[in-house]
């Protein structure tokens, strides 16, 4: 699993404070620790920084490249900010995060990526929003995103499509559809486009104590449909266990077997079954309930585990 480390994100109060203080050490440490925890790329989301992007973006790129060698993912809606960051990159091929199928962004951002030799993440979202059905998201990729790349002669191996994970709390019907989008997308073009998703989006607006479980159960399902790249928290040890178990088909513990079984069932276009779980084990019972909400079989509620 290629993890793009998500922790340098302006939504975090610590990141906000460190940025205000231009605390270079904080960002260096956070980048190094993410890479040590297994991140293959470091995402940088400091917001649009409309006023001071010309100073902030080069500063953060230089700070982080001083201590890690991995690619950086430039995560902002500010196109000028993207360019300011790109100009400062000295090390690995960066990723632009992101464009969508909305005309204005699709016009500018792929050209920018091409100019600086960057990869680009393209969201299957048009001006009309995010479609529910898997096929419609694939249609945006095939009908809008990929044609634009071909039009500007963008190297297909540098295109990463993100079919957009939405939260189980309020957009539950999207959850199983996203799995199918991830399954189908590689077959939508030759050469197959790379796929990436933002894992923790699946548990937005979920109480913090339930988020990691929902994230890692969904991850097992996503690995079942072939996911190989995601933006995620590399410090989540239990998530990393799930990745290791599934990648190495580790069957040595009951939990490892359960997560492997979930991935296998989903891979076979099957659904995890009641009998795959030892429901006398509270941990497995919680995983089973989580599978049910993620497949939109049972309506999500904050207290779904207590039901």
């Amino acid at each position, binding site marked *: 699993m290629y993890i793009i480390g998500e922790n340098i994100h302006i939504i975090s109060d610590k990141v906000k404070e460190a940025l205000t203080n231009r605390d270079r050490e904080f960002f260096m440490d956070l980048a190094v620790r993410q890479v040590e925890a297994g991140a293959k790329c470091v995402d940088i989301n400091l917001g649009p920084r409309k006023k001071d992007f010309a100073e902030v973006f080069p500063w953060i790129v230089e700070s982080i490249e001083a201590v890690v060698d991995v690619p950086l993912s430039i995560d902002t809606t500010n196109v000028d900010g993207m360019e300011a960051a790109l100009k400062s990159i000295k090390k690995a091929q960066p990723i632009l995060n992101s464009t969508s199928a909305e005309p204005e962004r699709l016009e500018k951002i792929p050209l920018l990526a091409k100019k600086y030799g960057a990869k680009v993440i393209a969201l299957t979202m048009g001006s009309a929003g995010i479609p529910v059905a898997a096929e419609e998201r694939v249609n945006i990729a095939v009908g809008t995103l990929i044609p634009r790349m071909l039009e500007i002669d963008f190297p297909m191996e540098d295109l990463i499509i993100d079919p957009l994970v939405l939260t189980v709390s309020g957009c539950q019907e999207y959850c199983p559809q996203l799995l199918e989008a991830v399954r189908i997308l590689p077959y939508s073009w030759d050469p197959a486009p790379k796929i990436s998703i933002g894992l923790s989006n699946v548990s937005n607006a979920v109480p913090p104590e339930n988020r990691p479980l929902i994230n890692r159960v969904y991850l097992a399902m996503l690995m079942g449909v072939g996911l190989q790249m995601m933006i995620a928290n590399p410090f989540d040890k239990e998530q990393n266990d799930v990745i290791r178990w599934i990648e190495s088909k580790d069957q040595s513990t009951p939990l490892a077997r359960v997560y492997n079984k979930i991935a296998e069932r989903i891979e076979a276009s099957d659904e995890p079954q009641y009998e795959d779980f030892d429901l006398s084990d509270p941990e497995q019972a919680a995983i089973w309930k989580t599978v049910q909400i993620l497949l939109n079989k049972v309506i*999500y509620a904050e207290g779904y585990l*207590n039901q």
Partner: protein
Amino acid sequence: MPIEIPKDKWPGKIRTVTLGATAAEGGTRSKTVAIGGEASLPFMHFENPTPNPPLVAIEIKDRKPEDWSPLLAEVWSEAMNDPGAWAKAAEATGADLILLALSVTGADGKPNTPDAAVAATKAVLGATGLPLLVYGPGQVELDNELLVPVAEATRGERLVLGICEDKNYRTIVATAMANGHLVTARAPMDVNLSKQLNILISDMGMPADRILMDPTTGALGYGIEYGYSVMERLRLAALQGDAMTQGPMIVTPGFEAWKTKESKVGEGVPESWGDWKERAINWETVTAVALIETGATIVVLRHPESVKRVHRAIEELMAV
């Protein structure tokens, strides 16, 4: 060639809930009514019989409301000045249930009091034998202040107390549990929040067969499609076996329809809108019937003519 009609087999069903208690059961109602129990989508009689028809409740207030349509003031007339008389008049329209909504203030403009709320409730119970729902004015502290004494003074009647919302349910649920009443749990047009509130109320120890769900709705032309979809989804989840969505649903199309411009305003509207009174009654009736078709078990109405029309629609829908 014989055609075989496909039938759905559902693992779950809507919970049966009994409202009201007769003297033998510790109350004073002349009869009790059962709602719910359906094991299919609404009115799919060929799959499973519909054990109980949807019911119509009439909403009355403890004193004459100042903000209701003049059309309603005209039809209820003097009865609006006395909750007992209003309840009697409501029963005479053929309504199945009475919903007494307590006001924020008394006639003197001061906040409503527990004594007045209890007196109004008792007056209604004395005037009619129908099972009763009592709702607070919808302000957290005042709701609790009024509903607790009402619940205590009517112990054993199996009233429905409301409204429980996520920001205020504990006190109402506790007093309903202690005094043998039921509750309405209302969530704002959201399946997740509806279910969550049911979980929270059940966690307090309230038996599931004493909880009605109010998924909230909008009037015709004012968001009814959202309410409709939420109710449809809850009904499907219930039939699929989700215990926390199996409560019978109560909705308030009267409240919703009578606040629309089409019902409220008689002058300065296009002539093509037609007769004001007929339009207002149609608005309430059509809103209510649409909601019944998506699974409402109790519709709360305001106009006597709407009660008749909705009853007629229910009769047709119930015909096998």
